[in-house]
């Protein structure tokens, strides 16, 4: 496909050309980067005709003048407020490793992608896996197509984290990966947007067990916009148990277009929870590939948005082998003019007999102007399967609200209580720091509304 040059891709293509080959990078990774930029260049940014992006309006991002986020040192204090106690941590600022804020976990092999040892376990893992699932094995259903932002990340990530959990290791302490954006606070130049491409590779060895917490946040307080475009790959080897929490609390004007891919081998378990509160234009594509018999994934999520926030969760769960199970529960709370998309695709391959797939999306609209879209898509090519899906879009129960008020609870408090009750099971699942999350529910977007 040849088209006239799309100038909006120029800053990204230029950056790729300017960087050249990175010394010390494995040949396989170089190749994947090259292929990725070619795919991105060929496909360009998705337009309205692209079914996968039909409901996601990325025009504001494409209009912005973009530039690579510069390296920035931050004070420990700025990271501290986002760190959870009792975790080992890897902290990144504008996509680059900040060793002074980090404490490397002991039982695992972890490293900064920009500073890999020349040889050894971590180097091997990166050479084998980095970019292999996102851009290679992932496109196993014929029409999955190119994910332009995942391709961009592979081509352009400057740094990131690799975490390898050795076979049989049971890692007690959660590993928190904090992705901080530190935008330049300039007044009057909201259209200048800095981008970064955080990259995460987690390889959970056979029969290992670990818990990863990703947090996306901003040191900024003002209106400075930024564009964070993360990609995460989670490889679960046979029998691995990997828990994953993804808390997205970006600044309210941020663009957040993320991609995560889980690859599950025999009897592996991947349990992922996404909590999305921040950002102005947010999209998160989550793919799980159940590629080993008896593997199970849980993909849960909660989004709480207000103002003019837009959040899009695009799910794709592929059952490739027999006896695989998947559970998805996504709940949304929308206030003001906020909008959401939930696109849940379940694809059951012919070989995947005895698949058990369940998908639920529930939305709570707190205002008349809020809008939730829910699109389940089941594609089933096996005949002995159980697949259920359901979606609801509702408003706050006025009877319940009146009941609580008649017992003396002020309207705002009653309101917050009902909203919290709706979201509760997902908040409590992310069992660390529930209070912080509760605060962001009650005091933040969606909470304490006055309607």
């Amino acid at each position, binding site marked *: 496909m040849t088209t006239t040059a799309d100038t909006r891709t120029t800053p990204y293509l230029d950056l790729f050309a300017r960087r050249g080959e990175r010394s010390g990078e494995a040949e396989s990774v170089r190749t994947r980067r090259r292929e990725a930029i070619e795919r991105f260049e060929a496909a360009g940014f998705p337009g309205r005709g692209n079914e996968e992006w039909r409901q996601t309006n990325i025009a504001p991002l494409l209009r912005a003048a973009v530039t690579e986020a510069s390296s920035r040192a931050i004070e420990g204090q700025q990271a501290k407020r986002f760190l959870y106690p009792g975790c080992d941590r890897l902290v990144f600022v504008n996509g680059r490793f900040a060793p002074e804020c980090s404490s490397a976990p002991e039982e695992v092999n972890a490293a900064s992608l920009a500073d890999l040892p020349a040889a050894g376990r971590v180097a091997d893992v990166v050479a084998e896996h980095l970019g292999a699932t996102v851009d290679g094995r992932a496109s196993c259903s014929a029409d999955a197509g190119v994910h332009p932002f995942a391709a961009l990340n592979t081509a352009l990530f400057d740094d990131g984290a690799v975490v390898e959990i050795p076979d049989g290791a049971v890692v007690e302490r959660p590993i928190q990966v904090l992705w901080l954006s530190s935008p330049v606070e300039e007044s009057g130049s909201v259209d200048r947007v800095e981008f970064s491409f955080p990259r995460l590779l987690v390889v959970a060895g056979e029969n290992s067990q670990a818990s990863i917490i990703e947090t996306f946040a901003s040191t900024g307080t003002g209106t400075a916009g930024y564009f964070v475009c993360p990609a995460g790959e989670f490889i679960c080897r046979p029998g691995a148990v990997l828990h994953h929490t993804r808390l997205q609390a970006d600044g309210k004007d941020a663009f957040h277009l993320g991609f995560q891919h889980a690859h599950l081998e025999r009897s592996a378990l991947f349990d992922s929870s996404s909590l999305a509160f921040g950002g102005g234009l947010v999209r998160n594509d989550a793919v799980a590939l159940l590629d080993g018999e008896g593997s199970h994934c849980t993909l849960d999520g909660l989004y709480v948005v207000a103002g003019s926030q837009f959040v899009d969760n695009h799910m794709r769960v592929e059952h490739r082998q027999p006896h695989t199970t998947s559970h998805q529960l996504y709940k949304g709370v929308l206030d003001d003019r906020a909008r959401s998309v939930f696109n849940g695709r379940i694809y059951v391959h012919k070989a995947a007999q005895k698949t058990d797939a369940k998908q639920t999306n529930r939305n709570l609209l707190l205002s008349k102007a809020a809008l939730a879209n829910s699109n389940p898509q089941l594609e089933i090519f096996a005949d002995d399967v159980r697949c259920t899906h359901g979606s609801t879009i509702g408003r706050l129960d006025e009877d319940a609200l*009146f009941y609580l*008020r*008649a017992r003396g609870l*002020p309207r705002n*408090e009653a309101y917050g*209580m009902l909203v919290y*009750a709706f979201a509760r*099971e997902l908040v409590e699942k992310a069992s660390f720091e529930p209070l912080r999350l509760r605060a962001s529910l009650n005091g933040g977007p969606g909470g304490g509304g006055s309607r």
Partner: protein
Amino acid sequence: MLRVSDLHARVEEQEILRGVNLEVKAGEVHAVMGPNGSGKSTLAQVLAGREDYEVTAGSLELDGEDLQEMAPEERAHAGLFLAFQYPVEIPGVGNSYFLKAAVNATRKARGEQELDAMDFLQLLRERAKLVDVDEALLRRPVNEGFSGGEKKRNEILQMAVLEPRLAVLDETDSGLDIDALKTVAAGVNALRNEDRAFVVITHYQRLLNYIVPDHVHVLLDGRIVRSGGSGLAHELEAKGYAGFNGGPAAA
């Protein structure tokens, strides 16, 4: 304490209350009886401040204050309590958590010290015992999956914990077996005192054997068509409402 004068109310263009007059003094128990659809629950909901019902004429006063100027929660803070005919299930909100929030919201609004967890728990246990509510119900979400009787008893528990000045009980007796009915009545009687008043809405004389009212009113077609002493309830039980059809308010 409560003065309802010439109250007219409608819902969705339909006039339901058509000139209700009711005066309740501190220390009194009033029973309101009437056939299905006569407007009993409408009266109760209007008192509690439900916005679906539009008051088109008349007035509502609690201790001289205009109830219509007050939000539902403000009415509760002023001491009004409504035991719902159909208590609402609230999934995800724990029963005792809800009750504590309600008690403390009321105390806060009155400028009183809020109860801490220990003091509240003690109060709750004591009142749960009084109205025979199983402690297991306190840990469950509000009314969710409760049996009909459990819901009604939960209403009475809330009343016992909140200690209102005026309690309106909307068919709290329906769906209760005789033992549960006695428990509910005992709960009400334990709270009876000279500062407190009750409006008991019921279809049956049965409850009034245990909660003996000072006054009985017959509500028919949105009007109180007759008022009398506790003997009136027996008369209704024997003769039904037939004799009151469309009759004037003066009896």
